[in-house]
């Protein structure tokens, strides 16, 4: 008894060490962001004299870009969920031979490289004037949000008993009203999971930001970091401060919505 308690404590210590190694880069990003600008990289392991000059610079240079990213990510969540949720419901509850066709299409879509989508959208956007626009980027980011949201939501909705909706129909509700009044409230958790991931995908997007914007007007923060990295980096503390600010959504979601994140990682992949 005592022996196994010791062993488990040793496991915990090893587990913490593994985590320290794996998350060291994240710590290093935070550490570097708090160093003064001249010698950011030569800094020690602890920010003994933390300064926020990196953050000041980051906010003044990238603040607008952070807002742009926020708007795009929020828009992607709304559009992705609005499009994906009814479809996920249909794929989980309606009986039709088209269901397997739809699922196959979604799986195949995961194999399409982003650069293929960027190639085609660039030429189309160029013609219809969506280059350098927030709606254009929201639409492009739905390419990662929609299929993932459909898979997550469907895997949850498969477990909904059909009788749930049928009862509402007895009371005279149409299919759509029953969907809104019954299915949506019950699916709250999976909607949150799908929404969180759509947000992260869109917030993290770099490829579409890089290819579908050509001039400075609309610039998500990922592109801002890339441009910082473009040539010899002058101000590492500002770069790392921007990186920390861009990492905040991921960190917040991981801490606040732990169970949704793990559920999403598994639900989206094993299908």
């Amino acid at each position: 008894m005592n022996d196994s308690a010791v062993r488990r404590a040793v496991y915990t210590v090893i587990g913490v060490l593994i985590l320290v190694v794996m998350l060291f880069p994240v710590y290093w990003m935070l550490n570097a962001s708090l160093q003064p600008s001249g010698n950011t990289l030569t800094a020690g392991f602890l920010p003994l004299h933390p300064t926020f000059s990196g953050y000041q610079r980051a906010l003044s240079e990238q603040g607008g870009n952070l807002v742009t990213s926020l708007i795009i990510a929020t828009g992607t969540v709304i559009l992705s969920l609005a499009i994906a949720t009814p479809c996920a419901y249909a794929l989980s509850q309606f009986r039709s031979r088209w269901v397997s066709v739809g699922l196959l299409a979604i799986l195949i879509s995961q194999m399409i490289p982003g650069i293929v989508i960027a190639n085609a959208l660039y030429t189309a956007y160029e013609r219809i004037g969506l280059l350098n626009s927030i709606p254009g980027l929201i639409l492009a980011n739905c390419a990662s949000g929609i299929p993932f949201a459909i898979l997550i939501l469907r895997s949850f909705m498969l477990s909904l008993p059909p009788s749930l909706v049928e009862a509402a129909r007895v009371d005279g509700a149409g299919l759509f009203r029953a969907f809104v009044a019954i299915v949506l409230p019950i699916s709250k958790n999976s909607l949150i999971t799908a929404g969180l991931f759509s947000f992260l995908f869109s917030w993290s997007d770099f490829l579409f930001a890089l290819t579908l914007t050509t001039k400075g007007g609309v610039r998500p923060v990922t592109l801002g970091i890339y441009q910082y990295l473009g040539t010899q980096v002058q101000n590492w503390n500002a770069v790392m401060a921007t990186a920390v600010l861009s990492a905040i959504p991921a960190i917040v979601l991981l801490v606040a919505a732990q169970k949704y994140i793990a559920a999403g990682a598994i639900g989206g992949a094993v299908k």
Partner: protein
Amino acid sequence: MAQATITRTTDARGTGPVRRSRGRRHRGEDLTKILFVLPAAVAMVALFGYPVVKNLLMSLQDYGLRTFFTGAAPWVGLKNYSTVVTDNLFSDAMVNTALFTIGSIAFQFVIGLALALFFHRRFPLSGVLRSLLLLPWLLPLIVSSATWRSILEQDSGILNRTLSWLHLINEPVPWLNSPSVALIAVIGVNIWIGIPFNVTLLYSGLAEIPDELYEAGQLDGATGWRAFWFITWPNLRAVASVLLMLGVVYTIKVLDIILGLTGGGPANATQTLATQSYERSFIDFKFGEGAALSNILIAISFLFAIFYLRSTRRAIDE
């Protein structure tokens, strides 16, 4: 609240009114059902169907900067393909893509499996530690790239400083600046990014193996390595093969990390099919050639998927 609804509705199942109302509404219903799927179908066609078709067409056209001004994109048959395939960089890019994909997946999987097995033991905090481990996977790739650029920086990066402090190296390693080590460094960073995903999926696979199997195995003397080899691995194979297939499909098209770390350099040492495709389209503005390269990328991806589907079908038949 939800509980109450469920109880009430189970009673209503199969009673008369449901059936009757169904018949009456049947036609309008079919229309509504279509409306449920229509937006997603349109979106999928616009965001995936159109790009694939457009890329196929562009790859057969002289689609370049001029096209954007004059609208002219003359058909050139397979010329774009022959141009990109005979380019000196093509074989390098193919080899790099293969090394990047195989190297990333092999290490992500082995390390991921080791960590999943470790966290599968029950000990205090294992759940919390395991979920914090997901962080590298959730960070924007460009954030990870920036962080690793600072860690791998040749003169003052913390990695070289630590290694020389430990007397493991005599002079700083030019991780991202030397053609001979840049690809290794890029693969290393990608392994770091992919480990959490592998741990999570393999852990969920491990959690599904019933404890009774191990208890029964123990009676037959299957413990330690033997338990892994005769119980864990056979039961984990399905999850492992899905994971490896997803790994190939996702890794082969990686672009962000490479662009952020090296931009394909130094001296094209980290060019892959994806970075080449990007450069031809968006740096050289030769969309026809870029499309040809990305179609080759899709074709390779599909080959893997078909291979995977056939092997799983065979597994089911057995």
